[in-house]
């Protein structure tokens, strides 16, 4: 027996248990990840998420959630469920990274050379 007062629960008509149950398009809202671009050509950076019935409205919501304070020229939204990610248990694949310092690009001391060049051209 369903005696909930929540319309989101009631509209499911859980007590009408005849086995058939259809979720209408747009009825089930999704979470969308939002990516913010500060200027043209810059990377889109992940800033958070919105809850919306479809991608179109997710973009509309994202504009006010994430695009109204800082400078913004563009936004992306992606359904969170469409993102493929490693399992948290697979974290060990990255475990030895800190040991492999030979992969760090920081070994190249180019800034010194660049600064020297700038000073030279001035």
């Amino acid at each position, binding site marked *: 027996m369903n005696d909930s007062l929540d319309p989101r629960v009631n509209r499911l008509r859980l007590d009408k248990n005849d086995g058939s149950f259809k979720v*209408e398009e747009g009825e089930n809202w999704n979470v969308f990840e939002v990516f913010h671009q500060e200027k043209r050509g810059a990377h889109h950076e992940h800033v958070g998420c919105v809850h*919306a019935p*479809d991608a179109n*409205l997710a973009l*509309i*919501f994202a*504009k*006010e*959630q994430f695009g109204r304070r800082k400078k913004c020229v563009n936004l992306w939204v992606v359904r969170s469920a469409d993102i493929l990610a490693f399992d948290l248990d697979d974290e060990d694949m990255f475990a030895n990274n800190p040991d492999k310092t030979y992969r760090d690009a920081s070994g190249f001391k180019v800034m010194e050379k660049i600064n020297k060049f700038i000073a030279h051209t001035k």
Partner: protein
Amino acid sequence: MQIQQALQELITKMADDELVIGHRNSEWTGLGPVMEEDIAFSSMAQDKIGHALAFYRLLQEHFGGTDPDQFAFLRNAADFKCCHFVEMPIGSYEFSLMRHFLFDHAETVRYQALALSKFAPFQHLAGKAKGELKYHTLHADAWIIQLCTAGKDSRERMQSALDNSFQLAGGIFEPGPAEELLIAEEIYPGEAALYKQWLSHISPVIEKAGLVLPEMTAPVYGGRTGKHTPYLQQLLNEMGEVFRLDPEATW
């Protein structure tokens, strides 16, 4: 009536529409159907009040008007020139959304006309509001289509919201006094012209949403001449309550 006076009437009615609908829509703050929509709707309500302020400043700077805050908060209903449509209580969310859709498309055609006006300050003002209005109508159109295609109950509620709003929306286009002076000077194209443009803006969305556009049989006029519903004075009392405690206070 002189052209200066006709221009002031025009600015006042446009400003009052913006202020009153901005206040009404802000009444949804904290009560919106979902958090994201609450924020979006509140944010657009703030934009409306910003548009009103820009118009009140024009009155102050070009026509020797009073301080915008005083003008907004201290007048009585009879001095307001807004249409009845914006005065109506927020009602159900479908009514508020439908009003947002119908009003913001009207606002868009109005601003498009202002962008071409021979009165230069209008051009500047229209340029500033353009991006905001683009978002407002995008938001409105998306919701109208979304809700009208979300099942029978939803579509019927949207249709009745449209039926209940349409004659009121006609009141946005109540002709102003001495409008022909403004038309002759190419300051403003006149309400009849804007009404036609408005229909051509809303019709494709109405059609896509599967709604039936009612006939405009009895547009609700009166607001432009200071005749209002009792809802306006009520709104003004509430809106100006804090301001009237000390009108000289600096914030």
